[in-house]
């Protein structure tokens, strides 16, 4: 079984937010009004944070794109009381909307703020993604794209693309990648199998200095960052 992971080159990232937009388009994540964004009530699956350090002459700002880290040791799966959040065998951490009770405990436990709660009934008109036929033996219950308020949502590593590619026999990581990886104009993001030593991500990780965020939390994220 593959172990999907992502490598983000912070040296190449320009902070253009194309990945955020691509994610919103692909997964129909609602945009949220400015008021909702100010109050942090808008759902988001991907964010780009700007971390600044130092004072004016030597100031530095680092743009850090943050999807869900899809941890190997996920804090959210540990605390979910209803088994709504689970880690698939290929390492993707998923949210089952039918089981979610909306207790927001995972929001509390996630050290990366990767999860968002759906605060209201969202319009679904913008949705125009062509889904593969639902293979419930492969992916379990997955009622998306229908979303109701009162549930926690998160990034899925575009698992629907991966499933479709597996069915069609395409190569994942080169031919088929998640929407954010596909959209990145600077080619800062790479996606692939971390367990495969010949995959692009494995080669990058072995050649460059890589970090994961908040390593002290012990969550073992599968999103790695190449430092500047």
């Amino acid at each position, binding site marked *: 079984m593959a172990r999907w992971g992502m490598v983000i080159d912070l040296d190449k990232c320009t902070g253009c937010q194309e990945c955020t937009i691509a994610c919103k388009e692909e997964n129909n994540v609602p945009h949220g009004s400015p008021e909702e964004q100010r*109050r942090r009530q808008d759902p988001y699956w991907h964010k780009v*944070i700007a971390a600044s350090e130092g004072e004016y002459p030597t100031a530095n700002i680092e743009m*850090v794109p943050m999807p869900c880290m899809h941890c190997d040791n996920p804090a959210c799966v540990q605390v979910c009381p209803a088994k709504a959040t689970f880690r698939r065998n290929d390492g993707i951490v998923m949210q089952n909307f039918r089981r*979610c009770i909306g207790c927001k405990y995972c929001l509390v436990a996630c050290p990366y703020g990767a999860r968002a709660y759906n605060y209201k009934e969202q319009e679904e008109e913008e949705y125009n993604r062509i889904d593969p036929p639902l293979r419930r033996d492969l992916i379990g219950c997955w009622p998306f794209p229908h979303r109701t308020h009162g549930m926690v949502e998160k990034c899925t590593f575009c698992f629907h693309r991966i499933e479709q590619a597996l069915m069609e026999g395409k190569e994942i990581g080169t031919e088929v990648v998640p929407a954010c990886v596909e959209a990145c104009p600077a080619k800062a993001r790479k996606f692939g199998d971390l367990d495969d030593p010949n995959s692009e991500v494995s080669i990058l990780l072995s050649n460059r200095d890589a970090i994961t965020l908040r390593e002290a*939390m012990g969550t073992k994220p599968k999103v790695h960052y190449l430092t500047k």
Partner: protein
Amino acid sequence: MELNFVSVEGNSKNYKIALGILGGLTLLGLICFGLSYTKGHYLFGSSNVIPWGMPIVLAIYFIGLSAGSLILSTLVYVFGQEKYKPIGRMAVLLAIALIFGALVAIATDLGRPENFWRLFMFFYWNNMTSMFAINTILYGGYFVISIAYLGIIFSGSKLWMKRWGCLAIGWAAMVHMGTGAIFGFMAAREAWFSPIKPLEFLTAAVTSGVALLIVVLVLTMKFTGRDLKKEMVVSLSRLLIVFICVLALLIFLDKMTHLYAPERAAVLYSLTGKYSWIFWCLQIGLVIIVPLAILFNKKLKSIKWIFIASLSVVVGIFFERFFLVIPQAAFPQQYYPGHIEGVYGAIGSFPITPVEMGMSLGIVTMVGLLFLLGLKFMKALPEKTPEEVAAAAAKTAPPTTEVPVKSDAPASAGT
């Protein structure tokens, strides 16, 4: 001395007015809940930064009061402190009303309350590594145990009272430590992450339980025209002093542990930032300083002053919970070294919204309503002595005789 228990008759005007007001406010809460359920939680103040709001504050507050109240009742039935006997039944009744309120509060905070039943699919559809799921067992069990306990008390079997009381006291302690663990085990939330949280919660529970017991005792005895023994209140207040001191020590240790470690930004913010007044004035002030100042003052050793001190503790513990759940969660997480700009590094805001407050008020009044109804349908109050009856008869023109228990009242539990 044999002590008989009676129920209130529930025909007086005051009782009916109280019932009406509480019922109306509960209805208001129900309407607010309906709004939040159909429209979504954007009507609440919570956000992705501060995920939990007033319902959770109320839930852990009620669980604390309930556990404290039940532990207190075991003083009578397990440890044989006969002097507290008049309040024993009331304490258990209160504990049941409060835990029910807490469960309702948790259910209203869920985004999908219709999936509440999933929490009770123990070990099957439940993820037992979740503190929340473990606590569901504790809360559910606690609810059942305390109802059975009340039944046993009514049945009057001394041996079973003692046995079941032992179970109840242990379970109540576990319930509250489990609640503390929900917060204390969250490594991602710096201000919550603390091994001392379960113990702090337990102490806070017992403290607020004693204080609430004094408040309810004084109020009930006053409004039903019974004579209150001063020694009992004073000895309860001594207990209160001990618990407040232990609580103060635990709070101090908790904050010092957080402040001593270099990663102290979140706790430092909560102690010095915009909302620190909630901690210093409402938590420390009302829970520790005001009550201790009153209770250690020899001149203020009257029921009235002890009542004020207890009320201050009860209100203060509420703000302790509030401070824990809301302002302490507001500090943004440090995803990456450096200062995070923009909304992802901003301190969370928590607007006070009418729907959330209406719903919270409804939950509080529902507990009051349950308690009042419980007093009517169960024999929870100590019987009046003949002198008290005479005094009451002399005071009011239409005497509200409550000595003969209504035989047509619906059967009280356990009899």
